[in-house]
């Protein structure tokens, strides 16, 4: 289980997370939605220790991430697959080499490494691009290659940072279907950050909305669809004119 416990994070004078608390149950896909620049990716980076909280803590499998020493942090990272917003493929390596790099030094036999590379590329339907360089791939193919690199590790958790951003609707739907398939086949717990509500409804078991550095509301897909919180409604319906609302979510609304 992943737990954000009153996490605060600032960059210079700008506070991005401000008392952010969220529980990510095992075996489910939790989608964190919110406006661009609201700190969704920042939250995700805390899970793998790429960022340290200024206050609060992030707990993964009972371990406080920022208190782990180097070896234990590396051990934790081996159990997490991270799909970056722009895939972050190593551009001096082929797709196969990108996946192989993640599998190296994990005590796997050569046969097992080859098997995992083949399986992960088959799952994302990218076998034909095995020897291609990232620069030769389209945006959607790059995202799929990034997913292949993450799932080849056989992780317990998979973190997706804006997996459908910048893609056309059809390719976005392909990526959504792929994420669902990955969860079904691997059983990995997923955390997805996105501002694409169509995608959130499709892949999420639970949806949490991040607003002004903290969780505004969290619930199942149906609960979020039925929310009475005007701020959440405005976001999920994509209405440009904001209702004049501030302060906490209304008590009558669906939420925690």
């Amino acid at each position, binding site marked *: 289980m992943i737990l954000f416990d*009153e996490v*605060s994070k*600032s960059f210079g004078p700008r*506070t991005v997370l*401000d*008392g*952010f*608390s*969220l*529980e990510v149950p095992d075996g489910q896909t939790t989608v964190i939605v919110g406006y661009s620049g609201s700190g969704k990716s920042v939250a995700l*980076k805390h899970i*793998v220790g*790429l960022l340290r909280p*200024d*206050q*609060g803590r992030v707990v993964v499998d009972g371990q406080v991430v920022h208190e782990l020493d*180097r070896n234990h942090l*590396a*051990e934790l*990272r*081996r159990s*997490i697959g*991270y799909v*970056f*917003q*722009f895939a*972050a*493929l*190593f*551009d001096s390596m082929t797709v196969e080499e990108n996946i192989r*790099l*993640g599998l190296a*030094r994990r005590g796997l036999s050569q046969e097992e490494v080859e098997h995992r590379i083949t399986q992960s590329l088959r799952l994302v339907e990218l076998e034909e691009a095995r020897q291609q360089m990232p620069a030769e791939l389209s945006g959607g193919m790059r995202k799929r290659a990034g997913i292949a690199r993450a799932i080849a*590790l056989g992780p317990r958790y998979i973190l997706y940072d804006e997996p459908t951003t910048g893609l056309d609707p059809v390719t976005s739907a392909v990526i959504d279907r792929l994420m669902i398939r990955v969860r079904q086949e691997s059983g990995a717990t997923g955390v997805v950050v996105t501002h694409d509500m169509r995608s959130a409804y499709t892949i999420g078991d639970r949806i*949490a909305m991040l607003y002004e*550095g*903290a*969780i*505004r*509301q*969290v619930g199942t897909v149906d609960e979020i669809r039925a929310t009475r919180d005007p701020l959440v409604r405005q976001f999920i319906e994509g209405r440009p004119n904001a209702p004049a609302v501030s302060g*906490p*979510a209304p008590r009558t609304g669906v*939420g*925690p």
Partner: protein
Amino acid sequence: MASKGVKQTSTPLFTPSRARPTLQFVQHLLAVRGTGVGGAIERVGRAAIDSLRALTDVRTWAPLVVAQMRRLGVDSVPIAIFIAVFTGIVLALLSSYTFTGAVPLYFVGSLVGKTIMMELGPVLTGMALAGRVGANIAAELGTMRVTEQVDALETLAYDTNAFLIVPRVLAGGIMFPVVTAFAVAIGVTSGWITAVNLLDLSTPEFLKGLRLFYQFKDIWFGLVKAGSFGLAVTLMGCLQGLRATGGAQGVGRAATRAVVLGCEAILVLDAFWAIVLL
């Protein structure tokens, strides 16, 4: 779950207090991480510890060193030779111009040899490589940083210092002396050809001058300097690249800073070795 934490309050740098104000001031200095002298010392200390730890991760960096040696060293030989050829020509002609009528002309050999081996060979090669290698490394690692490839490497449980910095710095430390040795040989040869063809000097006279004040130290002094230049230039490139932020503009700034700092480091180290070893 929708709880919102207490607003973070900014900590004043110094709060006046009647009791133990000095202690409180020191505590505040230590609390403001990453700023001021305390922050600089902390950063340097942490970088030193991280570097030592990365050096022990041989399994990560060892397979990458040879490729970096080829990229940083072998590929830099043409530019080093180009510079050495013209340095040799100019040095021969300049010394002849200076010596004419005052000093026997065979001293051209002495000046060309001594100057190229001990100073111009290492420094000019180092400067050229600071531009080529330092900017190359900073741009490459800077691009990796801003496109999250460095983060990706960390999430794959790699030590980025061992994977990115150590192979490049070691390759620089090994290959700069090799490239400099080539440059010295070419520079002296170029000076000799110039002296024989453009000056009134024979080969035996040039060689006589070359041997006159020669010591083995002339060679190793230059190569030791070149090794230190290699370490400094590659380290500057790596550190500036990994600190890049903000896209293409940030990468460009990192590359520029890497070249400037690399050149400055070469000049400082040049003076340092002259003081220590001469």
